[in-house]
């Protein structure tokens, strides 16, 4: 058993926001009692719709946001407070990339300058060695010397995301948090970046926290996945198990909603209602207003996790009811 590089223990994060100009302030639970672990060299996918808290969870994992409750362990020790020297040292071990590479890059600096910048900041090696390192990193992500001297707007979307990757990886981090890294890319380019990410992971023994709404990409890159709904995890386990045989009714709906090229016979589960508002969280199980298999207890009692024989955790009363027979299906 490999050691966990990242562990989240009962993380919660709430904000107090005003709904509209005249309303009273109310707490919004963006993330609620989330526990996750990521093994060294593996990929954990965080999946959910808007308002599920998946991006906030990613930011908490990096220490970019402080949880109100729970704690984050990186390589077994707690994250130091933000902006201390210890935190900055640890931060070089943990990097993040986002959906929009153009927003993440400085428009006025060449790609080479930006990839080299972390080395400059931490004063690593001599100036010429830094250039060589940066060029080697760019080469590793498939960008050549002419790309290196370009400005961000001179590159295509896929090339920009490669540049962002090079910059994130130049300090040789152990953990990379990717927030929708390929969602903005065209299909043909998306495949290039997905392959690159997986190659780099293998070569550098990177651990990935992969935040995405695209279950096809998640299936491709991750070993484990957690499905989030309204700030809580509803199902958590091995990716291939969750996708081939989803247990939680929300996971089932998500999986059935994946549009697959080439017609399929499987009937799609159409959920009623809207993705819920975190500020107006339903009682009991947050999913109950949209759940096709809702039971009376779902409206008042929040389900706890139960572990199924195949190792996954599910928080659902309907699944619990089916448990004694060890049948997974509902």
């Amino acid at each position, binding site marked *: 058993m490999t050691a966990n590089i990242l562990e989240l223990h009962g993380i919660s994060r709430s904000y107090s926001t005003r709904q509209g100009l005249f309303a009273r302030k109310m707490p919004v639970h963006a993330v609620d009692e989330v526990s996750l672990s990521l093994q060294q060299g593996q990929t954990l996918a965080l999946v959910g719709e808007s308002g599920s808290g998946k991006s906030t969870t990613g930011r908490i994992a990096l220490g970019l946001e402080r949880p109100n409750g729970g704690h984050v362990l990186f390589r077994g020790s707690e994250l130091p407070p933000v902006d201390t020297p210890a935190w900055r040292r640890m931060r070089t071990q943990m990097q993040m990339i986002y959906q929009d590479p153009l927003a993440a890059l400085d428009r006025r600096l060449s790609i080479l300058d930006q990839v080299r910048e972390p080395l400059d900041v931490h004063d690593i090696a001599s100036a010429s060695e830094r250039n060589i390192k940066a060029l080697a990193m760019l080469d590793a992500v498939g960008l050549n010397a002419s790309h290196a001297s370009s400005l961000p707007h001179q590159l295509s979307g896929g090339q920009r995301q490669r540049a962002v990757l090079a910059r994130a990886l130049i300090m040789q981090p152990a953990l990379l948090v990717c927030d929708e890294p390929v969602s903005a890319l065209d299909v043909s380019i998306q*495949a*290039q970046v997905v392959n690159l990410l997986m190659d780099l992971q293998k070569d550098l023994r990177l651990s990935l926290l992969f935040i995405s709404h695209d279950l*096809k990409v998640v*299936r491709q890159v991750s070993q484990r996945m957690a499905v989030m709904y309204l700030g809580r995890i509803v199902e958590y386990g091995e990716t291939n198990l969750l996708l081939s045989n989803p247990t939680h009714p929300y996971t089932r709906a998500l999986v059935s909603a994946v*549009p*697959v*090229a080439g017609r399929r016979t499987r009937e799609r589960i*159409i959920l009623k209602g809207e993705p819920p508002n975190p500020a107006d969280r339903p009682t009991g199980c947050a999913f109950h207003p949209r759940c096709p298999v809702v039971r009376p207890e779902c409206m008042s009692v929040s389900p706890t996790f139960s572990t199924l024989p195949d190792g996954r955790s599910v928080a659902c009363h309907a699944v619990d009811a089916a448990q004694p027979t060890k049948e997974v299906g509902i």
Partner: protein
Amino acid sequence: MANPAGTAPASALPAAWSSQPLLMIEGLTVDFSGVQVIRGIDLTVARGASLGIVGESGSGKSVTWLAALGLLPRTATVSGSIRLDGEELRGAAATRLDRIRGGRVAMIFQDPSSALNPVIRIGRQVGEVLARHQGVSGSSIRAQTKRLFDLVGLPDAARRFDAYPHELSGGQNQRVMIAMALAGKPDVLVADEPTTALDATIQAQILDLLTTIRRERGMALVLISHDLGVVSETCERIMVMYGGRVVETAPSDSIFANPRHPYTQGLLAALPPFEGALQRLIPIEGQVPEPANMPPGCPFAPRCPQRMAVCEVAIPPLAQTEAGRFSACIAGPAKEAQQPLKLSTKVPA
């Protein structure tokens, strides 16, 4: 300019799709200050049909339809022909176009929350269409709008009339857009990436709604999307665009089972599968070409694994590969019996 195989798809459609196509585009080109972004599009939409248009960014899939409806800025030069029931729309008088847009041909857009006017109540935005195209007035506007909101599944329809777009979620706003499109009782609904900005479960709702409405109303649906899965599940016929051209068009079930054009093949191979064994993705190498920098021959030639010398100089015409299927490739279907169709013999009056 017209592609010799141009109108062939119409004539090769199954007989049930009626003889006269509802909407027919021939030799459409669009230039933005000298740069050609649409380079000769031919297509037909039959009454009640569903056509899915797929392509990556810059393929021209949206521009084609904005051009067809005269919605491009004045800096765009449009040539070719767009005919609705035989009536030419290109260069038509503004008053004529205004009767067709929103009336016979409706269009909905990607981000519903910004496609609705933020300072006008949604009921009024729908009512505007009823008043202009259906001659509805007074209190019946409210009643009919409510009926449309019910039809598209907008919850609490009666109260929503006076709501503003920011008070609704993205999915609800897209339902309002669809209600607005249906208000004119259109023959064709053009949906430009209608679910791209929406969450997965909401995307499923909206696609389901579009399909139901099309079936119930006998309305033709043109669904523009970058997502092969989305068009595959919603449309009977698929058109793949690349570099401002149509590269392949075929019935939905056969194109995904057996793609002809190397670009379509490449797209499908690049897509992560959702079933079966995991394997390394096969990306299409290189980049999507810039409109200002289009290769002289086949636009896909520089990235094509099957490219031949001729591909770099000659632009392959869209040619029939088998009944109902067309591909614009010299190399790909060469092994099959290829028979380019003559425009002159096939154009329906």
